[in-house]
């Protein structure tokens, strides 16, 4: 563990410690704010109940990520290859960010139903933008001197893409993907809040109504763990693939 990790761990421990301390000192009722210790216990003890919901949410997120990759990557490449298309698409991309997608969640449920599709769609919409934009920026940031080298070699666009632009853009792409996988959880959960029969978001709403606040927090803990794990996995992939930095 390096110095930074150690500091982060200490900070987290401090916050949890204070939380625990004040909840006990001030005798906060469990149904208002449970102490971290009971949240952890609930998260573990209730795992059999939480796990099926977590699997659903994770599936939605992973499908959202997959869908985003399959669409954002080609679109970024197309916009990079044809700047005219970039100009055409840019307003839509920006508008997609200006629209509060969460406000669309109820409509999505109407359109796509209570099942998994509306949540996958929410996750997809949220992840799409960071991946597409960061990849496009990465492709565009390529050193002009390298472009000249490839022009002198008479390389086709496809060869340039494979040998030069794509590897050049990879660090930015991964930065976007990291943002994407962490915000993806938000999309899926919001989708579940609005209307679902399963998933961590559904579990949270249900437990909240029953004043099982410790279960709400336990679900949040699971969600956080999922987000962090995906972020961590993307980080490992990044290190594996980008060996030259």
């Amino acid at each position: 563990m390096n110095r930074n990790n150690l500091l982060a761990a200490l900070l987290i421990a401090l916050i949890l410690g204070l939380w625990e301390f004040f909840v006990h000192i001030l005798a906060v009722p469990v149904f208002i704010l449970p102490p971290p210790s009971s949240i952890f216990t609930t998260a573990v003890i209730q795992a059999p109940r939480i796990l099926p919901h977590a699997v659903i949410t994770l599936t939605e997120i992973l499908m959202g990520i997959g869908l985003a990759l399959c669409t954002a990557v080609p679109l970024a490449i197309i916009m990079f290859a044809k700047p005219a298309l970039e100009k055409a698409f840019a307003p839509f991309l920006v508008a997609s960010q200006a629209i509060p997608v969460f406000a669309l969640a109820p409509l999505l449920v109407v359109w796509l139903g209570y099942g998994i599709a509306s949540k996958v769609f929410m996750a997809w919409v949220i992840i799409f933008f960071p991946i597409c934009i960061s990849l496009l920026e990465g492709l565009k940031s390529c050193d002009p001197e390298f472009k000249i080298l490839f022009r002198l070699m008479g390389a086709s666009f496809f060869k340039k893409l494979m040998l030069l632009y794509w590897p050049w853009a990879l660090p930015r792409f991964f930065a976007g993907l990291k943002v994407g996988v962490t915000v993806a959880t938000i999309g899926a959960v919001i989708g579940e809040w609005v209307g679902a029969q399963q998933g961590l978001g559904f579990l949270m709403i249900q437990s909240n109504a029953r004043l099982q606040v410790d279960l709400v927090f336990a679900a949040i803990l699971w969600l956080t763990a999922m987000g962090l794990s995906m972020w961590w996995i993307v980080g490992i992939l990044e290190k594996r693939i980008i060996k030259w930095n």
Partner: protein
Amino acid sequence: MLQVSSVTKYFNDQKIFSGFNLKVDQGQFHVIIGPSGCGKTTLFDALTGVIELDEGTLSWKQKLVFNLTHHAAYMQQKDMLLPWFSLLDNALLPSKTGGQNMVNAKKQALKLFNRLGLSEYESHMPNQVSGGMRQRCALVRTLMFNRDLILLDEPLSALDTITRRSLQSLLLLLQTEFKKTILMITHDIEEALLLADEIYLLSPQPMTISRHFILDQPKPRKFNDPVLLKIKADVLDKLEGDLIHEP
């Protein structure tokens, strides 16, 4: 023969050179020396089609050509190795982009690695080797273009003196062993004296040839050759004169 006839290049209103002429016979090694910023790289960029010439004509092997993109291998001022490819893969780039037979290309590259003292480093990444090795690799890649004409823009300027001296003998191989026609820019007068059949001394903007030296001493040469020392003194004189008269 490479013939550059009255070429002109402006950047906006700034005249970099106009009516500039140059001639390199096949198999010859010509060297260009000139003050920094006079337009040497601009000339090479224009010859190779990186930028467009405003006026003038080029011919290579008795044929008029629009530019030298498809006739010359251009080694730019920096080594320009891709950090994500091994030295070998970097050297193979011209073959990959040109859609050549990769088995043969690899054979050729490995031979060149061997000849330029890079064997055993084929699978190293550029950031794992010294500047001298990177430059050797860039040289191999330049040869892998398989063009008869080679333009070198200060190929060794980023290296320390000792490494530079050892690579100068490799540059000579381009002419003696690989039978290339070479046009090279350098700041290093001694390098020019060791390698060149002809030296063009350039004046600051607009760039013109202020002196032209023909060196017919056999190669490899030694610095202590009195004729070379005399030329060196002349070149230094001229360069200093230009600097003093600069506005």
